[in-house]
């Protein structure tokens, strides 16, 4: 985690804390997955690109290939020469279609965090769901 939520005292109670669960096994699993998610998130952001045109084309094609369970083909739109753009779309796919599964995994992991904070045994299942989503990449 690169940036903690820097929360003023007035709202500290209203925002995620989680320190009580730090010693619990599920918390360890969450922490381990958290680091992997950070890395995957950066890779996804990097592979997508900041222009909405390029991002749309790369994410759209990568997600479609993932959805249909087929390798990424030639890029639909040559934002650069075919070989380079094909590689870029493949990288977007490798980085999980612009982060689609990472995004869902982050949500699942946050759910695990919440369950863990409440001492709910469902934490493990939520971590497993996040791991499975991350493994889809």
């Amino acid at each position, binding site marked *: 985690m690169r940036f903690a939520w820097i*929360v003023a005292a007035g709202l500290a109670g209203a925002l995620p804390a989680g320190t009580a669960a730090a010693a619990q096994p599920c918390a360890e699993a969450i922490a381990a997955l958290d680091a992997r998610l950070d890395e995957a998130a950066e890779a996804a952001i990097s592979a997508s690109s*900041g222009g909405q045109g390029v991002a*749309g084309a790369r994410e759209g094609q990568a*997600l479609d290939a993932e959805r249909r369970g087929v390798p990424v083909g030639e890029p*639909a739109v040559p934002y650069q020469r075919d070989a380079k753009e094909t590689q870029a779309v493949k990288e977007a796919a490798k980085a999980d279609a612009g982060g689609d599964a990472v*995004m869902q995994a982050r949500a699942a992991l946050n*759910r695990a965090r919440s369950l863990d904070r409440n001492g709910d045994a469902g934490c493990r299942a939520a971590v497993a769901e996040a791991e499975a989503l991350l493994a889809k990449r």
Partner: protein
Amino acid sequence: MRGIANVSRRGFLAGTGVFVLAAGLPAGAFAQQEKEKKFGGEAMPNGLRDDPALFVAIAEDGTVTVTCHRQEMGQGVRTSIAMVVADELEAAWDRVRVVQAPGDEERYGNQDTDGSRSLRHHYMPMRRVGAAARTMLEQAAAKQWGVPVAEVRAQDHRVVHQASGRALGYGELARAASALPVPDRAAVRLKDPKDFRYIGKETVGLVDNAGITTGKATYGIDVRLDGMLYAVVARPPVYGGKVRRFDAAAAMKVPGVVKVLAIDPPAGPTEFEPLGGVAVVARNSWAAIKGRDALQIEWDDGPNAGYSSAAYRAALTEAARKPGKVVREQGDVAGAMAKAAKKVEAEYYIPHLAQAPMEPPAAVVRIAGGKAEAWACTQAPQVTRLRLAKKLGLTPEQVRVNVTLLGGGFGRKSKPDYVLEAGILSKAMDGAPVKVFWTREDDLRHGYYHTVSLQRLEAGLDAHGRPVAWLHRTVAPTIGSIFAPDPKHQLPFELGMGVTNAPVAVPNYRAENPEAPAHVRIGWYRSVSNIPHAFAIQSFIAELAHAAGRDPKDYLLEVIGPPRRMDPSELGDLWNHGEDPERYVIDTGRLRKVVETAAQGIGWGRKLPKGSGLGIAAHYSFVSYVAVAAEVVVGEGGRLSIPRVDIAVDCGPRVNPERVRSQMEGAVIMGAGHALSAQVTFDKGRAQQDNFDSYVLARMDTAPREIRVHQIAWDDQTMPLGGVGEPGLPPVIPAITNAVFAATGKRIRQLPIGDQLAV
């Protein structure tokens, strides 16, 4: 050809006495270094360039020519890029001219002008360009005088040796400087920002002002070549349709019509391909239009013939009332919702919109000697070049794309389908120059429409009225539908426009994305998905404030929460506008500041007469922070007017404050049109609006009478730059509709307001 000057095909060296600085060096020698993970401009196709040889030439008379590789569509980028180069170069502004680069990203770096990132990505490279050129001029002067370079300094278009009082003008030094090697980046000294003469100041006007205001500027639709033919296309009235059969006999009888031919529809996802149809080529534009009118065409409407906005809205609503793909989650929404003292829910509908640039799409292509040349008002000359080459069976090197001024773009002109149409028709006419022009009706009936969406929000409030649980379901057909067959979910970059990165201090938060198929061409539109997301979230916060009996501005600040810096990827945003999440964090302190500034500007809390109201909204997008406070008056018969809007923007360090102000003013006027009257609806797959009488934008009598722009000034030049072109728009609409509620008690949950206020 008039007006906008393009870089010569043969380069600057073709001219007499004009020197490209270190033109002999390989292009890209000064390019960005490779990194394992790239963000921002470095991650864009073909990355960034900062080689002065590519962007600066100095003539013997001292004229400095700056090549602008970004496209001008009213945002002032040709001025702003030149300002940055000229400032670092210590050039006198009245001796600077700007020429437009053709589409050639391998030479100039990324040119796709979208995403509010021309200066965000190219500010530092352009500073280095100017500084490197200045350094070379200083070195040339020092060498000529035989003094250490440390003793000379560039000042106002000349280099001076203060100890001796000698001075040489840039024109006198250009030849010698051009023979020097480009200095290493590490050896280039950037100016101290306190010495800026143009950057961050309002000391220069637009370079294109004179041409635009005298009618001499060249837009895509203005291009005329000898022997040029004119063409319009009858496109399938329903997306995905095709020509079953057509009869051209009557069209061919129209004087001036020379050919009628079919254009094939795309075989797969439409991406940037022409929609197909029947083209009429004529000797003048009127004949082409009349010939098209005379065509007899039988259409096969295809799979979207049943698309109706009313039915689709019902389908979106049904989808929004069921769980969808979870795209962001914090805490335990269900648990917190169950314990909430009060629950509030609302659904917001945002219709399709059309970019409707004042200049509809237009392009000219001619083919000769195995080469094609295009003139086009395009935001994306490189993709145009590559796509046109492929369409014509040429190599990219055999295609040149000249960029004209754009009479507005708003994302429409990032898609070069109209240039491809011109290429197809030129080829069919044995290479003759053919101008394809879209009429207003063409543009509105066959657009890349802004998505339609249903946004459902639910919240649980505690006993103090504070939100403790938040559920947001966003349902909208995705832009990905033009690139892949039948996707059902929004893409991460669309969700990263206000949902997965929404900076709200609610402990239990869940965002879902149910399915929504696309039935029209969906494209990006200024601000893209931030428009529906900001409208829904900012309207809902105002609704919660009302439910809690609180002041909307105070409540908005409470929902934003205390000042803190958040990693967007930790929230669930896997796009972050392509920027490094460690450098571009979400800073709620800056968001709060623009809210407070806009509120103070409009005099939040002041007493207003009956029928008047104030509304406020804020939104973070394109890594900038904007808040809008609007005052509305709802008069007799529900007639709505907007006496005043205060808009506050924090885009980090400002390069061209005059352009920041104009972009915010433009966003307010555009947003007013969206709030009040603009929408594209469909029946039987056909767009129901086809000109400005039915697609109604803000007009003189409905535009805000006074717009006050408040720019948050930062002295810290190490702060990353934010976007300016797009982030102004999203909060405008909810600020207006929230003001309507304050004035009337009527909550606006569907856009446009239209006749909802009529009594």
